[in-house]
């Protein structure tokens, strides 16, 4: 299917860039925010910013699910690991620092920390090693939370617990749109999160905040047409919600996944690294599943947590207030090989994406 389609056609890209320039020339400063690490990768890797007019800025919001996990929750995972429990996690979170250490640090000191591709791997490990306690560190946005829900609802082995740290994207977008100093003109909504949640959760942005919002896919042309659609709405003065990624996103989302998420999780307030407390943005296991809640099962208790190390500007990069290159540590004291902040640790962090792209030039 992919070969026969023209999702990366350079001629089309130049044509749509021309349209973007024409519309933007009638406007002052335009600031469009996306909230997905994969969008940032597409934009940076394909050099899309170089095609855009100088008065149009595309900024990266808190779209890296690893970067926004607060230090306190990594501290919780570390505390569990030190209790001789095997921590099972995605690879990206391994090197992200908690208040003092990362999971990789405690692994190097002998703790049992295992990297997997999927929550299902954690279930299989717990089945095979029934004498040992396992905890799956369940991070990720709405794209990932349904897979945790699939396994929890199927009543996995009792020696497997869940440290749930899933976060929801629309409440963070609400926080961004209300930051007056950010002064956003429009949102590119995240395509893969939207395959699950559908379009409805974004309706508030054009309706209440008059913020053009376009769900876009991840090919370079998807992003460019997303930008064009936002500019068109701005020029017509009619902010609305549009879906550019119709081949994957249906307006109702993935109903099966949403039903499962609602069955397993309730929504509570939660802290995000770089953003602080975001109301109604975090998932927690519902009462009937609390026997799988690792925090309750093992009596996990941690204090506040240190999210941002001295000198690190990740809290400003995460909300798009500065570019990675505006951080004095970028590619000096903080590199992909020796990252200081979470935005440089994760492959979906804005700093690492910018660092890797600069290596290509």
């Amino acid at each position: 299917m992919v070969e026969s389609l023209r999702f990366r056609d350079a001629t089309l890209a130049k044509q749509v860039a021309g349209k973007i320039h024409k519309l933007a020339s009638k406007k002052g400063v335009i600031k469009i925010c996306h909230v997905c690490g994969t969008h940032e990768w597409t934009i940076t890797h394909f050099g899309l910013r170089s095609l855009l007019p100088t008065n149009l800025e595309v900024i990266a919001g808190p779209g890296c699910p690893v970067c926004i996990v607060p230090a306190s929750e990594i501290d919780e995972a570390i505390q569990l690991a030190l209790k001789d429990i095997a921590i099972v996690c995605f690879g990206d979170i391994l090197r992200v620092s908690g208040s003092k250490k990362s999971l990789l640090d405690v692994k190097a000191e002998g703790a049992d920390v295992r990297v997997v591709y999927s929550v299902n791997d954690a279930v299989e490990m717990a089945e095979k090693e029934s004498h040992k306690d396992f905890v799956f560190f369940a991070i990720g946005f709405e794209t990932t939370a349904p897979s945790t829900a699939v396994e929890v609802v199927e009543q996995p082995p009792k020696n497997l617990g869940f440290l749930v740290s899933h976060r929801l994207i629309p409440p963070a977008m609400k926080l961004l749109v209300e930051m007056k100093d950010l002064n956003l003109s429009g949102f590119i909504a995240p395509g893969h999160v939207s395959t699950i949640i559908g379009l409805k959760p974004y309706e508030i942005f054009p309706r209440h905040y008059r913020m053009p919002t376009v769900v876009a896919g991840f090919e370079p042309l998807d992003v460019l047409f997303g930008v064009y659609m936002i500019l068109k709405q701005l020029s017509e003065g009619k902010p609305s919600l549009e879906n550019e990624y119709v081949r994957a996103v249906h307006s109702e989302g993935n109903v099966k996944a949403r039903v499962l998420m609602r069955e397993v999780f309730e929504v509570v307030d939660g802290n995000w690294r770089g953003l602080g407390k975001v109301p109604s943005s975090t998932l927690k296991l519902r009462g009937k599943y609390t026997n799988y809640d690792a925090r309750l099962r093992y009596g996990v208790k941690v204090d506040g947590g240190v999210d941002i190390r001295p000198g690190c500007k990740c809290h400003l990069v995460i909300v798009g207030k500065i570019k990675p290159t505006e951080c004095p540590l970028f590619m000096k004291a903080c590199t992909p090989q020796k990252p200081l902040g979470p935005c440089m640790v994760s492959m979906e962090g804005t700093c690492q994406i910018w660092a890797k792209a600069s290596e290509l030039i």
Partner: protein
Amino acid sequence: MVIAMCLAIPAKVLDIKGDRAQVDFGGGISRDVNITLVDAKVGDYILVHAGYAIQVLSEKEARETLLLWNEILEAADA
């Protein structure tokens, strides 16, 4: 296999056994994924995230996207 948290990769369904499917990511990479969350059949393209299919991709709508893009580009007013 890239493990990125908000990345989802398209793959073609080769075979289905219960809630598991063998899928082809292209480039010689195939693996077993969970399809509980979607109604997929052999031959469909699905989006896979962290070992779970999260949506079935529509070829019809992919083609419609290209038509829409062409319409936008051909429109004289913008």
